[in-house]
C-alpha cells in the first residue's frame, strides 16, 4: 500500500474518480472509482474498448463534462499539489490550456474553419498569457515549425490542410501554452498508418524536448507500446490492471488483459483461429455484481460474482483487480 507522503510526490494523482450520466431515465455508470498517478515527463496509457469510460476520465480531469447530463462526478484530482476538482470554475479556466490541455480524436472538427491556423493558435496563446498580438503570432509560427509545418503555411485555413497536418495543428495549439499535462484522446485513430507513424514519432520527440507529462487514451495496444511508460487497463469504468509497460506487456495478470493480447491477430501465428474474449462488454446502466468482467471470464467462480473486487499487488507497482491473479 502506498503511503501519504509518497503519493503527494506525484505530479498528477487521480483518486477515486466517479462519473455518472443520466440518460433516458437511467444512470450510466461511466467511471467507477478510478485512481492512478503520473510523474513529471512520463506518459500513462489508458487502454480499453469503446465505452469503457476512457474519454469520461479525461473530460473529468479537464472538468469539461457536459453539465446537463452529468449525474454525479466525484473524486480528487491533484495536479502539482493542487486539488483541481475543488477550485472555482474561473481558476480552472485559467489552468486549461495553460497547465493542462487536451487533443481530441477528430482533428477535422477541432479547428475553426473560418480562421487561419496561426490565428487560432495565437488566440489560445493570448488567452493564457499577457503577450501582445505580434508576440502571440510569432509564438504560433514557432509552434507550427515545432510540429513540422513550415511557417509559410501559417496563414492558411484548416481546409487547406490534410488530416495528418490538421492533427499537427491541433497538437501545436495544445502545446502552445507550455502545458504541464497533455491529455491525448485517441490522437491517431482517425489517421492512416504512415501518417500515424509520423504523428507518434513527433509526439515522442516533443515529449522529450518539452518534458510534458501525458495521458494517452487509446484502444490500440501498439500505440501504447510505442508511447507509454505506465499503463492502466480500463474495463467498465474501472482500472482493472495497472503497472509499468513491461509489467502489462510481459506479465499481464488480469484475465481481460490476457484476453486482449490473445485476441490480437498475428500474435499466435501457429493457429489460424483467433481467441476472442467471449460475450460483450457490460451495459454501463446495469453493471454485474462483483467483478464486472466475471460474466466473460473463463476463470470466474461464485466468489468473483459476489463482492466487488479490490486492487491487489502482484509485484511492487503492478496491481490487478482480480481474485485469481496471477493466473
Amino acid at each position, binding site marked *: 500500500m502506498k503511503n501519504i507522503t509518497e503519493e503527494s510526490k506525484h505530479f498528477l494523482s487521480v483518486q477515486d474518480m466517479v462519473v455518472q450520466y443520466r440518460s433516458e431515465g437511467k444512470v450510466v455508470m461511466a467511471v467507477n472509482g478510478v485512481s492512478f498517478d503520473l510523474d513529471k515527463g512520463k506518459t500513462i496509457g489508458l487502454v480499453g474498448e469503446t465505452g469503457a469510460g476512457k474519454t469520461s476520465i479525461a473530460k473529468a480531469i479537464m472538468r469539461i463534462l457536459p453539465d446537463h447530463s452529468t449525474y454525479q462526478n466525484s473524486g480528487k484530482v491533484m495536479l502539482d499539489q493542487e486539488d483541481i476538482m475543488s477550485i472555482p470554475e474561473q481558476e480552472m479556466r485559467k489552468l486549461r490550456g495553460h497547465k493542462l490541455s487536451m487533443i481530441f480524436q477528430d482533428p477535422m472538427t477541432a479547428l475553426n474553419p473560418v480562421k487561419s491556423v496561426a490565428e487560432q493558435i495565437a488566440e489560445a496563446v493570448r488567452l493564457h498569457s499577457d503577450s501582445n498580438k505580434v508576440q502571440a503570432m510569432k509564438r504560433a509560427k514557432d509552434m507550427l515549425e515545432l510540429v513540422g509545418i513550415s511557417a509559410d503555411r501559417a496563414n492558411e485555413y484548416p481546409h487547406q490542410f*490534410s488530416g495528418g497536418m490538421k492533427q499537427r495543428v491541433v497538437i501545436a495549439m495544445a502545446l502552445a501554452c507550455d502545458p504541464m499535462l497533455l491529455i491525448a484522446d485517441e490522437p491517431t485513430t482517425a489517421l492512416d498508418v*504512415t501518417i500515424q*507513424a509520423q504523428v507518434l*514519432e513527433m509526439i515522442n520527440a516533443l515529449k522529450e524536448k518539452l518534458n510534458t507529462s501525458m495521458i494517452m487514451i487509446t484502444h490500440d495496444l501498439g500505440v501504447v507500446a510505442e508511447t507509454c511508460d505506465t499503463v492502466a487497463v480500463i474495463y467498465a469504468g474501472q482500472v482493472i490492471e495497472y503497472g509499468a509497460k513491461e509489467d502489462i506487456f510481459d506479465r499481464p495478470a488480469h484475465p481481460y488483459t490476457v484476453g*486482449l493480447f490473445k*485476441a*490480437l*491477430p*498475428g500474435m499466435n501465428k501457429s493457429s489460424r483461429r483467433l*481467441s476472442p474474449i467471449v460475450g460483450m462488454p457490460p451495459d454501463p446502466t446495469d453493471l454485474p455484481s462483483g467483478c464486472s468482467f466475471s460474466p466473460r471470464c473463463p476463470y470466474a467462480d461464485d466468489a468473483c460474482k459476489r463482492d466487488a473486487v479490490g486492487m491487489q499487488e502482484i509485484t511492487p507497482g503492478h496491481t490487478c483487480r482480480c481474485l485469481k491473479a496471477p493466473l
Partner: protein
Amino acid sequence: MSALLEVKHLKKYFSTHKGVVHAVDDVTFSLDEGKTMGVVGESGCGKSTLGRTIIHLQEPTEGQIIFQGEDVTHLKRKDLDRLRENMQIVFQDPYSSLNPRLSVRDTIAEPLILSHKFKGAALEKEVNRLMELVGIEKRLHNAYPHEMDGGRRQRVGIGRALALNPKFIVCDEPVSALDVSIQAQVLNLLMDLQQENKLTYMFVTHDLSVVRHISDSICVMYLGQLVETCSTEELFKNQLHPYSKALLSAIPSVDIHNPTKRIVIKGEIVSPIDPKPGCRFAARCPYACEACKEPQKLEMISTGHFVSCCRVKEINQLS
C-alpha cells in the same frame, strides 16, 4: 485449377469538377477458389473502389474482369443478376450498411425473397438457418439495427451477404469499426464460413495485422496503382517496394522489446486527380529518381512476387 477471379488491367475513373480521379488505375491480379486475397493501402488508394468495381457496384472504365472463366466486365441486366448471386459484399460500417427501418429478419430475408427461391415456411426456415450460421441469437429476430452492438450488426451484414450462397465475397474493412475482442469473433466467423462453404474472399483493409492473419496473398495499393503483390508470408518477410517497406514498418508493434525499425516517409497521400504518368509514390519515396517519372511496369521478381518499381533490384540489392 484455374483462377476463380481474374482481373486484367482494370481501370476505374471518376470525373469530378476538379478533374478525372484515377481511383483504380491498371490493376491486374488473379485469385484462386477458396483463397483469401488481402488488399491493403491507405485511405484514398482505391482499394474500396477496386472491390466495388469487381462486384459491379460501379461500372469499370476499362479492363477485364473474368469470373469462373467467363468475361463479366460488361453484362446485361439479366446476366448481372445471375452474377450477383455469386458475388457479394460485406461493408465496413455496420451502422450505415443496414437499413435502420428493417429488422434483422427482414434484412436477411430480403435477398431470399428477391431470388424467388424461398417462400412461406421455407423462407422463415432459411432465415433462421442463416441467423444461426452467423451466430445471431433467435431472440434478436425482430430487433432493429440500432438495438444491437457493432459486432452483431456486422454478423447481420454477413448473413445478408451469405443468403444467396455466393462463391466470392468482397469484405470491405469488415472489422475496422470493431473493438479488438469483437474483431476476433468476427474474423473467426469469416474464416469458419470460408472453410465450410469454400468461399473466396477479397479482404480490403488498412489493418496489416488483420490482413496478415486472414490472407493467403496480398496486394499493396498506392493511389490507385498496384505496387506489390505476393503471398502473405513473402510480403512480411521480404517486401521489396519502398512503399510496402514504409507501410509495414509503420504498424505500431505490441512487442515492446523488439520495436520495429521505422521508416518514416515524408508527406501525405494526395488525391489521384489527373496524375502524371510515372510512379505515384515518387513524391514521397526516398529513392525517387528521373526514371521514376516514366510509367512503371509490374515486374515479376520471383515466382508469384510482382513489384512495380524501376529501382526495385537496386534498392534490394537483387541481381
